Structures are given as C-alpha cells and as structure tokens.
C-alpha cells in the first residue's frame, strides 16, 4: 500500500459526507497527492478500491486536473505564475532569474531533489504580482531579495528535517 492510514481515513471520512461517493474522487486525489507528492496509476488503483469506483474513472479525473504532478517531483514544487497580471509585473524575467538561481531549466528538478520549477497559469494572486506557489503556500509581491530568502529558508527547513 502506498497510501497510509491517515490518508485513507481522511478519504473515507469525507466520502461519507457526499450524497454520492464518486464526488469524493477529487478530495481523495488531493489527499493522496499531499501524502505522496504526485499521482500515478498505483495510487489510482488504491483509490479505486477505497472509494469503490472503477479505476478508469479515477485515472480519467486525475489526468484532467493539472494541479497534481503525474510523476515524481522535488520536495518543493515551485509553480510560478506566467499569466498576464504577473507578466506585466516581470514574471518572465523572474522565471529567468529563478532558473539561474536554481541552476535548472523549466520543468527540471535540482540534483539534490529539493526543488522542481514549473510555470503555471493564473493562481489568483493577481493584485500581488508577481507570485508563486511552493507546494501549498502562496508567495506574493516577489522581488529578487524575497526569492533568495524563500529559497534559503526552504533549503534550511529541508536540512533541518534531515534531507
């Protein structure tokens, strides 16, 4: 089993609240993603058993939504908004800066498996552009200085956790 008891509990508890258990697919994918860090076929199979919904329905739904990485990513998934409001505030140059800073290209993961950098569509932080999301957290009104600090803090956090 990939999913741990806590995740399964979260899923089953939630499932009971919906008039139809199929509605629990999206929350289940979210919980699974938060535990595993990405989603793939073995996870869908387990979810299919937990929710008692055909495997294909889970796989179909998961593939539709872009928020869940479908293969392994670094400890910190950095998603930088490249949509219009952020771009008008320098998001394109910010992406260049981040690639230089992390020493990787878009879509890549740092060799220490700490950071994966991707750019995404609007995240709803338009009035605080440019912005990015690292795992579940939003960072807004970004500047070079702020990014330096965020990355340093995250690295330190990872180090503290023994990675």
């Amino acid at each position, binding site marked *: 089993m990939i999913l741990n008891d806590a995740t399964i509990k979260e899923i089953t508890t939630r499932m009971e609240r919906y008039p139809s258990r199929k509605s629990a697919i999206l929350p289940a994918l979210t919980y699974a993603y938060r535990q595993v860090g990405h989603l*793939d*076929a073995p996870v*869908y199979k387990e979810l299919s058993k937990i929710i008692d919904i*055909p*495997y*294909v*329905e889970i*796989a*179909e739904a998961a*593939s*539709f939504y872009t928020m869940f990485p479908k293969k392994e990513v670094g400890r910190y998934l950095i998603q930088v908004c490249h949509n219009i409001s952020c771009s008008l505030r320098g998001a394109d140059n910010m992406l260049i800066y981040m690639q230089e800073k992390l020493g990787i290209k878009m879509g890549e993961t740092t060799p220490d498996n700490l950071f994966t950098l991707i750019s995404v569509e609007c995240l709803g932080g338009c009035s605080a552009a440019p912005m990015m999301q690292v795992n579940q957290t939003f960072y807004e009104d970004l500047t070079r200085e702020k990014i330096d600090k965020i990355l340093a803090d995250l690295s330190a956090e990872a180090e503290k956790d023994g990675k």
Partner: protein
Amino acid sequence: MSDNGKEQITLTIDGREVTVDKGTTVLEAARSIGIDIPYFCWHPKLDSVGACRMCLVAIEKFPKPVVSCATDVMPGMVVRTDTDEIVKARRGVLEFLLLNHPLDCPTCDKGGECDLQDNVFSNGIDTSRQTFLRNRVIDEETKTTFDDKRIGPEIIRNMNRCVTCFKCVRFNKEIAGEFDLGVYQRGSSTVIDTPPGEPIDNLYSGNVVEICPVGALTNTDWRYKVRVWKTKQADSISSYDADGQNIKLYYDHRLIHRAMSRPNDDVDEGWICNIARYGYQYINSLDRITKPLIKKEGQQVEATWDEAIKLIAKRFKEIKDKKGSVCIAGLTGGNLSTETNYLFNKFFRHNLHSNSVDYRLENIDLKDGVETAAYNCLSAAPFKIADLEKADTILIFASNFIKDHPIVNLRLRKAHRKNGARVYTANPVVTKSADISVDELIYQPDTEAAFLIALIHAVIDHKLYKNIDESKAAEIKTVLKPASLSEAAGICGIDEARITELARALAAGENLYILAGEYLKASQHRHTIANGLFNLANLLGVDDDKAAILATHANSIGADRVGLRPNLSASLAETLASKWEAELPDSSGCSTSQIFKGALGEEIDSIFIMGANPAMRYPDGPFVNAALDKLDFLVVADLFETATTAKADVVLPLAGWSEQSGSYVNLEGRYQPFSKALPSKQGVKTGIEIIRSLAEAMEAPLGLDDKTLETETKEVVDSWKREPRAVDTFYDVKQSGVIDHGDFPYRLLIGNDLHHYGYLSEHCPSLMRFTSDVYLEMSPNLAEKLKIADGDLVRVESSTGKLVLKVRFSEYFEGEVLFIPNNFSSVEVNHLVSREGGGWVKIEKLDDK
C-alpha cells in the same frame, strides 16, 4: 395525440412542416423527413452530449445556432439547416477537425465509410489553411506524435484520426457498463485510452470500433484486409446465443471479412457482442473438413460423398431391418437452421419412423422425477426483449446473464439506467450484473430449489402474495420442502432477512420480471426448480411473458418449434402429420440422455449427429464417451474434426450457417431469416443437402424443394401454440438433501468462457485473442486458503477424472466454487463431471517443477 399516446408537435424545417412525438430532437425530426443534418457525436441510442458542434442549426428567435442533436422540438419552431451562417459553422467545424487529421485515407480502414470523409466531401472542402505540422501532441520524452497503439486484444487506436466524439467511451460506460476505456488529459491533448496498464477486452468492445465515425479505432479482424466498397453484404443472425443478434456479413468472392451490427430495436438496438462480431471467423478456417471420412479397419480415411452417403443409407437400412427404426437416433446442434431441423425431423420421423430425435444436447439426466409442465411452460414463455426496458423490478435467477444472454443483458442494463429498475440477482457466483444490483444473493451450489422455497415461504409468511386467499397460501406452504423459511434459507446459505427483503421488493414491483437461465437448465433438478419458479411467479402475479427460463442456443427454439424432440404436443404432432400426409410413428422416442443410455444398452444402435459435439460438451464425459464408443454405427456431420467425429464411422463435412440461407428463432420466439453470404466451401454440403441425398439414397426422397421447405417450415413455426401459464396451479417443490461429497469439497461449474460459446468459437482467431486456453477460475479468497497464486498449476480431480490446469483469479467468485470453460478441445473438461458425482472436485497445487 398519436397512436402511441405521445403528444405530437409540429414544426417547420427548411420550409417543410413536420409532425413528431414530443421529446424528439430537431435532428431526428429532420431525419424523419429526409433532411440529413451532419453529425459526429450523435448516436440514436446514446445520450446527446452536443460535443462535435457539427449539427448546428439556426432556429428563429434563438440568439445563436444550437446543436440539433440536443434540442427538443417545440411547437411552431422554425428551423433552418441551410443558412449561410450554418454552412460556415459546419465548414468551420470540419476545418477544425481536419487540422491535425493525418489524411491517410488511402491506408485507413475506415476509408469509404468514414463520417469525416463523407462530411468533408459533401461540404466541399478541398483546400486547407492549416500550415502547421499535423499533430496534436508531441510526447516530450519520445518526441513522437500519436501512433497506432494496440489497446486490447482486438483494438488498435490511432489518436491522430480521432475527432473526439467520445462515442466509444460513452457506449462503453452508458450502454455496456464497462470501465476499460476512458478519456484522459484535456483540451487538444485529449486522449482516448484504456486505464493505465489494462486492455479493453470487454464482451461488447467491438462496438466501439463500429461506432467510431473515423478510423481512430480499428480492429485486427478488418485491418488491411479489404476495402469496404469491394465487399458485398448479407443480412445474417449470430449463430451462437439465443438472443438473436442481427448482423450483417461483409464478404467478397473468397472470404467473409467482418460482421457488423444490423440494428433491430426489438432485439439488439444495434449493439452486438464480440462473439457475434468475430464468431463468423470459423467459416474461413483452413482447418475445415472438406472431404467425407469413412472408418475402414479402425481408421478414418477420405472418401467421396457418393461412397459416404451410400454407406450410411446401407447401414441405416440394415439396422432398421434388423432391429427396427427405433434403434436409430438423431441429434442436432444449436446453430442449425430451422429448415435443417425441420427436414432432419421429417427424415427421422417420416422416413426412418424414429421418434428419437433431440436438440437439447446438453441436457443431463433428471435426478428426480419426470419432465414437468412448469419447466416446459416457463421455457416457452412469450418473453419480449424490448419490453424488459420498461421493467421496474427484475430478478435474474440462476443465470450468469452476460454470458448466457449478452443482448438481453444490455436491455437489463437499460431498464436500470433509463427506468431505474431495481435489479436483484441470485446465483451460485457473483456476476457482472453486480454493479446494477440492489442485492446480489449467492446461494450454495445446487440449492436453487431451496432458494426458491425460502423465497416462497417469505412471500407467504409476510402475506405478499397476490390473487389468492390465505387458506390457499397455507395450502401452498404444505407442498414445500423444507417447510419453513429458516430451514430453506439455511440450506441455500442466505440470511433470512435478505430473502425476506427480496420478497418484499419483488412484491412491490409493478412491472416485475423473473428470468432464469443456465444454472437452472444445467441442474439435474431443473424440473423441480422450475416448479418453484412457477409457484413464485403465480404467487407474485407475474405476467405470463415476464417469468421465463430463457433459451440457450441460436436456434434451440426453432428446433423446438418444428418438433425436434421425442415428445410432441398434440397440436404439433397433428400439424406435422398433416404437412407430411402421414402418420407419425407411434413408438416412444428417446431424449438425449435416454439415447446415450440406450446406446450403452441395447435400445440404440446408431446415432446421426449433425453439428454437435457431445463427446466434448455433454456434461458427463465418461458416460457419453462410453455410449458413443459402443454404437454400431455413428454418423457425424460437422465443420471440424472433433472429439465426436473421431468416434464416427462416417464423418460428413458440413456447411456453416453463413453458407446457406435459413432462419433462426430466438429466445423470444422471433423468427429471423438469414441469407447466404458465400457459397459453401468446396467439398462441404449443407445439412439440408445431406439429408436430401441420404433420403434419396434410401429411395424415399423427401420431396421438398428449397422454396417449399422454407414456406412449410415457417408455417409450422407460426402454427406453434402455447397455453398461458395456469395462474391458479401450484406444484410440489422440494430441495433434495445435501449430499456429502466426501473427499471432493469444491463445486466445479463448467460452461462458456466470456468470449467463447460452444465448440466452434475456438476456430475464430479474434476470439482466441481474448481467451486462448483453458483455465481454472477461483476466488482469491479460496486461493489464499489453499496457498495458490494466480497462474499456478493445480491438479483438479473428481471421482471420474483429473486434469492439470492453470489458475486464474476472479473477482466474480466467492467461496468454494470453481469454474472451467468447456470451449477448448485441448482439454476434456466434461470428464470431471458426471451424473453421479455431480461436479465436485478437489484441487492440489503442483510443485513448481
């Protein structure tokens, strides 16, 4: 109001007035007056999704064009399908669809019958403004665009050709209730595929190829074989199950190339199962017998037709002269045409004066008692497939419905989907109907009677019966053994409360169906079970056409209607006598099991078997093989060498169903003619030709030319009558005591694999791609108990035989029941079962060595 009681609506389409039922879509209304609105994603039997946008029309007072496939007609609507705006919209859609379409029509198997090709042609699009590479998606890792991908045993997907109409996935989920195909990704990256790592191999999967409007889904069966415009088509009927699937055979001068559906709303609604679709392939097989064989000094050697027929005529005459005609028996297989059965019957009864004919080749001896009126009555119930969709409550009893009745199964699903029917199933195994069942009851093997008795007790105890009074109810209770609900429930191993719940649900049904099938028919207690079913139907006031034991083979009913059985109803006997202008023989005839018994004794000396393989299929291998071996003279006509032909003194090469015209009568009693698709393979003869030449050789020609034979057969079929179920009659029902099977603790069921039916389907390469070999199916739970893994080799042993087989796990098995398919000639499965030992076995895991 129209004749069908529906409200009528009148509207105008392209200036023409049309009146249709309320609830009709604009697209269908247009089609009804010959205005063809182009479409890709619409299908008359699927819910409209309005995805392709090809069927846009302009409707007055509507602000923008609407999809006609999902817009219901309204009174006074003024619709135009030909405005400049609509023409531009259609051309726009086609241009969009062509953007990344590979335009590989010359090598595409859909060429010539492609909706995209047709629509592009009829809308006059001959240039392209598209200047990019034609690809939808480039895989970042492989740097390739979509290519052909085999997604199942038969199906190949080419995503570049796909117009994303979703029909395949919609069919699969909506109609078939199968979940082996899905839609992935989104936007222009949308992909149709199977769930990761799994194939599409459901029984109905061939339909997704057929309804694909383009060549995105093709199958091995048809790929690169022939261009469609070089084929001819013949209307036909599937030669396997009794549902009567309407098909169309595509053939050229050499071969049949494919079978497609031939929509018949009364029967199949245009959906056919893979067996109907790919099952024609045995006709093309190179393994067919093409020369008669005669046994000389223990060896079968090739002979001419003339030699063979003369020999049979001579030997039949000798036997008849020596011991009388009753010593000759005739058996026909389930897919012979009604006409063949009729002539066969006439040959035996009229020419040979023998009543020992039967078509019920898999009927095992009755354990207790004789044939009952209940069994015969329910087996001939005037059940109508199309009516099932209006049911609100359905009990499927003793039938693995998808296997026994693939098409009625779809109607069952439709009743559930469209009418919210509450479905209950009661079987010895879990079936594929589980997902639509309110409750799926699993009874202990061989306790069908106990289950019904328990149910009847529940009905009576809770006063759920209709049309009778309390004293009558009390009286009915006395004919039941065991005499109480708890006792009966205990025997079948189902909780009393669940049985009571089922009784309540059935009693609450306003349009209730109770349908039974193979597990009942295969039982040695089938008549006593039928009594129970009969009582139950009467207690609950089920209509005559809604309680039935459904027929099995393509033409069992046809054979029955023309009297290919030892005992005839008085009216049928009279009809036949008058047609033949002769008395029918007054000797008593033997049924299948009596014929085999007779062969072992002194009563039967010779059997003529046409199109059947009892040595492999009869559910008592040791018995039937001993019987056939003991015969003085065995004649077998068949398409292939089989375990049965191997024992024959004369083997005759038989033509297949598609090599002649004829008719089948399906389980509803629906007479369905089929036409000839190809001349007979060289060297083979049709059953009719064989019987005729035999009669001539015996100097008693049957005197029926093809036309007369057809007419006379039809007349006999039509003259068939049945007394409605006697609603105030109740029969004795008792469950025999549970026998201790000692060293053989597991119940073995044998029957058809999901993708095979009978013994001919193993000559169909496409079906072999789904299942190519025999296996032992068991529940993972039992396997765990026995420490057996999926794929392990085990020895299966009964009191009569043993076999070594590979284990296959199945989620459809619960408890200690096992299954082996009996469709493969490589293994004599029927040697494991017998009338005496039933089907009880033990299993033992073999060492890895």
